[in-house]
């Protein structure tokens, strides 16, 4: 089985935000919720880098560990998903998430945040694959159709890579070797406790 991961090559990302837009459109993500975002570090200074970030589908996921109702689960592909039927909107996963992935329809408001929403790696949720019920809650299920997440698939500079962790790490490593530089696989150390590709 593959172990699905995201890898953003910060030296290729041009901050076009197409991944953000594609994600929002593909899954009909409501206004105010961003499953994916592009963060620019050292903006306007030497060493500026942009990184596209979403749920990293962590190994030993912090969100799953702190969830009081145990609504998270990890698929055979290593994708971290959750059940909106079980979520009580307590917000703890947001505090535990190193990547700011969990999103809520409302902020605070007497603790009524609504059901948490986050990147599903285009893999839907606990409902039957590619059903209207699944689409309404989690968006489309591209993985069930044999496709990879849309954000990475349509990235114009191929900065954002999605797929089996070993394969995308190798692609990144080959790039770094060929061009002679790279600034590391952002978030991998925190997400996977992994040294591969930096």
């Amino acid at each position, binding site marked *: 089985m593959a172990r699905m991961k995201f890898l953003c090559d910060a030296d290729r990302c041009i901050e076009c935000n197409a991944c953000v837009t594609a994600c929002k459109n593909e899954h009909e993500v409501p206004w105010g919720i961003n499953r994916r975002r592009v963060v620019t570090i050292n903006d306007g200074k030497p060493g500026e880098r942009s990184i596209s970030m979403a749920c990293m589908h962590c190994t030993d996921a912090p969100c799953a560990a702190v969830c*009081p109702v145990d609504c998270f689960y990890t698929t055979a592909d290593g994708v971290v998903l959750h059940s909106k039927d079980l979520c*009580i909107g307590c917000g703890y996963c947001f505090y535990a998430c190193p*990547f700011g992935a969990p999103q809520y329809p409302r902020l605070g408001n007497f603790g009524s945040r609504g059901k948490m929403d986050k990147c599903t790696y285009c893999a839907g949720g606990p409902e039957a694959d590619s059903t209207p019920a699944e689409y309404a809650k989690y968006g489309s299920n591209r993985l069930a159709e044999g496709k990879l997440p849309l954000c990475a698939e349509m990235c114009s500079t191929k900065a954002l890579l999605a797929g089996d962790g070993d394969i995308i790490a190798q692609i990144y*490593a080959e790039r770094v070797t060929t061009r002679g530089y790279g600034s590391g696989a952002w978030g991998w150390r925190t997400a996977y406790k992994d040294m591969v590709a930096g």
Partner: protein
Amino acid sequence: MMGIRTRLRTALVALVLGVGIGLAAATATAPEAAAQQQPAAPPAATEQMLFNYLQGNVQGRVTIPDRRAATLIQPAGRDFQDFWRSTMKWIGGIAILGMLAVLAIFYLVRGTIRIEAGPSGRTIQRFNGVERFAHWLTASTFIVLGITGLNITFGRELLLPLIGPDAFTAWSELAKVAHNYLSFPFTLGVALMLVLWIKDNLPSATDARWFAEGGGLIGHGHPPARKFNAGQKLIFWSVVLGGAAIAVTGYIMMFPFQFWATDIAGMQLAIQLHGIIALVMIAIILAHIYIGSLGMEGAFAAMGTGRVDLNWAKEHHSLWVDEMMSGGRAAAAPPGARSAGAD
């Protein structure tokens, strides 16, 4: 100092970038590439060094309105995970089970503390209606808040396997709403008790003697006390100060990121403090419930009817009884009791 710091930062940036380039060149996983390139630095140094340089979080700029999204990585989330998964559960387990064990042993050794002179049949007003209202407002809401709070910490392990995920979510959702809204009457109760009883709970000289004699809990003495003995003062101050801390951290959690200084680190701190203080308070209140009911004959009536037996009062609050008697507010016979002649 400033010059050195600036130079250090510049050096660090240079180092980060340098290592980034060098290490990236070195981290080729393809074996043939690795054979050609000599490693310049240990792998994964880039992200770690950036954490060090940026003091924790990797912060940037985003083009969406949600400014929290500008935090690219906050490694502290992993610490919060460990705290929630183990530290919190250990603290809670030890505090609550430990207190229950202590109380059980105390009960086995000491039994119910009786009124030594026996009930006199005559009672004296100890708490009026307002005082009892404040107490029971706080007590009833605290019990619900405590149970619903423990559900968040321990429910997943203890209750979820018993009733299943759907029922547990339905209950937890209800529990969360109850927890949020009952915080307001709880806060009101604590504030009321503070106003009503602070004058009787200031430390005094008799407290030292009370502690020296073990409060009569150890041994069978009855150290003198005014309206509240030193032990009760400890309960009062832990409820007032602990309650205030729980209220403040709780309201921060109810209105996340809306108070000053509540960035994500502040929110994590608020949750951790809220949890630890609440667990310790539950342990303290367990002892309070024990000594106010099963542990001591005649104690419950103080908060039940508001009137206590005169002999109980003389044994446990001798100075207070003296004050009440000399103040002209003599003990009254219960309604319907007949005068016993010479008395």
